[in-house]
């Protein structure tokens, strides 16, 4: 089953990039290693969101909540219980997927934009709880200095851990998108009514997609705890959700790796611009407006005129599968 994958050109490129990243700690200063780790975590989060948005046309506007649920679950278990670290790491994504299922059950009944609208509201309940339940979550301050297992506690250690988990997750997502499940999802994206008429239970399929995406979002949350050693309510705040949505748009949401690029750009911008100004959300808003007006192809990643112009290229792409 991996034969086809390995024969692809992009596979070779990915492998080369992966090898360079493996060697990065030996020549990059520590701050950049840390920054790369943050980008990896965010990239995984954006990729998981894009399963819904780019491949499923599900407007998952509050994906950050599931990231937060993953991080809080793992973080709280590590900080407040004595269960083995790996159990906490597994519990994070599972909790996120469960939250995804619950919220998804309600949202999935509404169409498109209204799906996103309701999700913002329901997700914000989880934010409000994390924010107010001082006894458990530390409220506004969150919890800092979460004990991380020794072998991944150092900057380099966490870097490698995040890199490897990211690699595995990207590989799994790739397989999922190329599987019958992924094909069907993309068909639903293009034409849900037609899909129902060929016997596909559209809402079930979408709900499964949400669960898968929120699971990976939870993995990203766990990785965040590994890198930062802390949790706080901003992880579940909708501005973050919007930020990752913008990453998907910026990178190109009908492409596989677009969100990674988007995450790299936005995280770098936030890191470097953020040191000069406290008005990051203003900048984010301006970026979004610029995207809407001047990069519609970049935003849509795909539109019909573009399609006809580069028809052979796209056809070739789908042939590679």
């Amino acid at each position, binding site marked *: 089953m991996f034969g086809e*994958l390995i024969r692809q050109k992009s596979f070779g490129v990915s492998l080369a990039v992966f090898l360079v990243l493996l060697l990065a700690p030996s020549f990059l200063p520590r701050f950049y290693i840390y920054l790369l780790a943050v980008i990896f975590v965010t990239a995984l989060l954006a990729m998981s969101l894009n399963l819904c948005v780019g491949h499923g046309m599900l407007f998952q506007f509050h994906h950050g909540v599931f990231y937060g649920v993953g991080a809080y679950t793992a973080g709280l278990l590590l900080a407040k219980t004595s269960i083995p670290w790996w159990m906490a790491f597994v519990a994070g994504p599972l909790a996120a997927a469960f939250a995804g299922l619950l919220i998804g059950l309600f949202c999935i009944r509404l169409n498109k934009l209204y799906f996103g609208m309701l999700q913002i509201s329901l997700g914000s309940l989880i934010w409000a709880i994390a924010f107010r339940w001082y006894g458990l979550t530390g409220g506004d301050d969150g919890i800092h200095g979460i004990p991380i297992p020794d072998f991944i506690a150092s900057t380099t250690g966490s870097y490698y851990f995040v890199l490897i988990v990211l690699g595995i997750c990207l590989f799994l997502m790739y397989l999922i998108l190329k*599987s019958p*499940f992924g094909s*069907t999802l993309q068909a639903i994206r293009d034409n849900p009514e037609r899909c129902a*008429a060929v016997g596909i239970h559209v809402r079930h399929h979408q709900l499964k997609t949400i669960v898968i995406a929120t699971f990976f979002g939870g993995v990203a949350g766990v990785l965040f705890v590994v890198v930062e050693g802390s949790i706080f309510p901003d992880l579940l705040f909708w501005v973050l959700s919007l930020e990752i949505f913008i990453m998907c748009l910026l990178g190109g949401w009908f492409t596989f790796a677009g969100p990674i690029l988007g995450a790299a750009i936005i995280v770098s911008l936030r890191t470097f611009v953020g040191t000069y100004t406290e008005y990051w959300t203003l900048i984010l808003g301006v970026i979004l407006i610029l995207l809407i007006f001047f990069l519609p192809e970049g935003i849509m990643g795909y539109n019909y005129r573009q399609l006809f112009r580069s028809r052979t290229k796209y056809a070739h792409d789908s042939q590679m599968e």
Partner: protein
Amino acid sequence: MLRVEDLHKSFDDFKAVNGAHLTVESGQLVAVIGPNGAGKTTLFNLITGQLQPGRGRILLNDEDISKLPPHVICRKGIARSFQIANVFPRLSVFRNVQVSVLSQQKLSNKLFRPASQIAVEETGRILESVGLVDKKMDLAGSLSHGDKRILEIAIALGNEPELLILDEPTAGMSPDETATTMALIQRLAADQGLTILFCEHDMEVVFGTAQSIMVMQQGGTIVQGDPQTVRHNTEVQEAYLGDE
């Protein structure tokens, strides 16, 4: 095989379907005709579950399917095409058909096997039978109108239906394309023993191919019978053929 009994459907005050009756015997090629707005498309949407009827029954092999959602009706053996070309524009032609084949084989939920290795043969066979093999790697959105309509039929075939419903399969086609498409439909009916229900504007096409014709007007059924009967029905002549 399919029996529609006294079906009603209204949108607010407008009675789109108002007392429709229809019988489709196994192996038949049945046409529904009627002027624009007679309720043909609504009738089809009611049969395949896109819409829920207000009153009346739809029986498939003596089972009432009138309250079922589209995907369940499809699983019971009714596949359809739509009036406006309704394909998956961003997927390749091959993928378009494969999606329905996968659904038919209950493989849509397989997560970790490459789709490129599943149901390839069946999909290829369907593409061959409708003559789209050469274009199988084109994006569906880039096909000509005629090819999209053919692709729609191919997608419906992926479900291995007992009953195939085609909503104006030749709408917007040139005379040549129309002839080819109707030949294809007749061939499918003959070769694969398909039961086909379709609606159509072109009277020549209808009387040349259908074994049974149902005539609708203002949402209700005037008559159903073989072409001879229908042609000589005075009510039909007054109501419909008269103003052609």
